């Protein structure tokens, strides 16, 4: 990774990591406090993350960037509540999720997190509409309201005409937009995208990034995890991860 390709504003004091502060800032949507993630590889303990702390306010568009093996995937899994930290505290939308069990985490993922994956991760046998309805089904939304919300979400990503299509009848960009609609349908606190353009050509990638920009302007909090600098550049703040630690945390816009 070369800093020369990035035009970053100097790390100002606007948002500074507050690693030593205990407790969380109730104004922040996300508060991570001294997060450690340790994997036991045989007899050896491997630290994927050591002592990561940061805050994300509501409505921010943020990129987490880092080379493979940097720990950014681990961080993404923690932010997305797919996993829990070995040590440290994680507050999401006022809830301490650090010690939650599997089912509580599932509930948080359903209510607070909208995932967008590199390979879309749509259900192949289900229509676009049904894919988008899925989080609402697990969220307990009644059928008629569910249809309405799913249609609206598909409409907001300009896919209203493709509702009855199955993923294999859609282009890559369309599939990713279905996935974004699915992520947004439950009005989550954060939209968490993992290499969202990794499987798309550059033109489609730009379309998806434009969509993210629009969603951000509509008030959504967006976190994009990527190793591509031009994708990271679209965000307003970039956290660089290296060797399991925050290397840089900069506001670029």
């Amino acid at each position: 990774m070369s800093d020369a390709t990035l035009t970053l504003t100097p790390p100002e004091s606007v948002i500074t990591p507050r690693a030593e502060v205990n407790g969380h800032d109730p104004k922040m949507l996300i508060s991570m406090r001294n997060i450690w993630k340790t994997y036991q590889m045989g007899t050896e303990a491997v630290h994927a993350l050591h002592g990561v702390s940061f805050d994300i306010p509501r409505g921010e568009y943020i990129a987490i960037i880092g080379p493979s093996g940097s720990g950014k995937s681990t961080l993404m899994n923690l932010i997305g509540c797919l996993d829990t930290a070995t040590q440290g505290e994680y507050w999401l939308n006022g809830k301490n999720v650090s010690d939650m069990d599997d089912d509580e985490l599932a509930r948080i993922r359903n209510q607070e997190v909208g995932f967008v994956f590199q390979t879309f991760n749509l259900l192949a046998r289900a229509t676009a509409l049904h894919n988008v309805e899925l989080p609402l089904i697990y969220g307990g939304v009644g059928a008629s309201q569910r249809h309405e919300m799913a249609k609206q979400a598909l409409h907001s990503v300009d896919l209203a005409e493709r509702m009855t299509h199955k993923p294999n009848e859609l282009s890559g960009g369309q599939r990713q937009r279905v996935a974004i609609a699915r992520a947004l349908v439950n009005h989550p606190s954060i939209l968490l995208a993992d290499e969202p353009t990794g499987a798309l050509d550059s033109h489609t990638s730009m379309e998806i990034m434009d969509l993210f920009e629009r969603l951000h302007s509509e008030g959504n909090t967006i976190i994009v995890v990527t190793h591509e600098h031009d994708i990271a550049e679209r965000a307003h703040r970039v956290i660089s991860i290296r060797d399991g630690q925050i290397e840089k945390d900069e506001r670029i816009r």
Partner: protein
Amino acid sequence: MRKSLSLFRLAAIWEAFRVATASLRANKLRTALTLIGIIVGVTAVIAVVTIIKGLDQTVAQTFSSQGSTVFTVSKNPQIIKSREEFIKSNRRKDVTHEDAEAISRTCTACWRVGIAANAVETVKYNDQKAENVRIRGVDPITMFDIDGVSINVGRIWTDSEGASGREICVIGPDMLKNLFNDAPADRAVGQEIRIDGRPYLVLGVLEPLGSIFGFSRDNVVYIPYSTYQKAYGGRRSLVVFVQVHNTDQLESAEDQVRTVMRNRRGHLTEDTDDEGFALETQDVFLNLYSSATSNIKWVTVGVAGISLIVGGIVVMNIMLVSVTERTKEIGIRKAIGARRKDIMTQFLIEAVTVAALGGAIGVGTGFGLAYLISALIGFPLLVNVMSAVLGVAMSSGVGIISGLWPAWRAAKLDPIEALRSE
């Protein structure tokens, strides 16, 4: 915005059902193989149970044709269960005509009292021959009613004829077949047949009773007891038949008969434990049937049940494959908020759906098979709604049990690992 918990469960269960049926449709061959596993099991169970029920009914009807209002007094029990019993009963005094008269005289609860003795002989008519025919000497003629047989053509002998010792008889319908080349019954009336070389005049032909377990109950010739005594000697022990008006009186009649018989046997029995006679209702046959067949029934049902277990193992196998194949899907579902019980429900419903479907088909084929078999053997088919419901419930149960482990494996998958799989 969020609806109640029960509605949530309903939506999740409906989703699980949709997913299950879609998955079953998508893998038609696999579904068919799984179905066959369950169908074979349920078919076997339903067919076996249905056939056993039909058999039970046939036996019950056959033995109760004489009616539950009849009991017998005899020297030897009708069914001897052990060597000891045989020796014991052989030491008893014969039951005689006098015993029957004493019962008839003193038993106020008794309605009809009759005596009967049996022999097995070869019966001839011209050059026709019937072997192993039951010759039944009876007195008085109400024994026909007690036996539950009725005259079809011709007549029964009169009381005076019965007392005369004349060679007269009433024949069972099998005699028509075996001696008279299936001629109409009225052709046999007035003919002379030979039993053990003695000529007998045929007075009438009985209504058919049918057969049980391949033994015809129509292969019989009734003769008056006086004639029987003349031909076979008076020294043989006979059986006293007692009939009451209705079953309420059965107990008091039995008590009275017991008292009479005990008085008549008195101290003549060396063995003090032994009453000196056997008093039995028709239940003895049913009891014997039940005790003789209960083990066989359980073994048969058990063997059929094993095939259902095999069906369950097939379901489990297929479900494990299904879970492995759909690891990615499970990961996606978990990522967007499916909890363990949602995933568990999904796979359980899939297992139960296929098992219940197989069960329903199996109930159909089971009854079909039972129908074929009962038509071949010739007893009634008892299509029981209860066993149909039970068949489906049982296979659903098998589905749940065999789906539990695969579903649990799916439910506890780590979402990150599951998402990573292809």
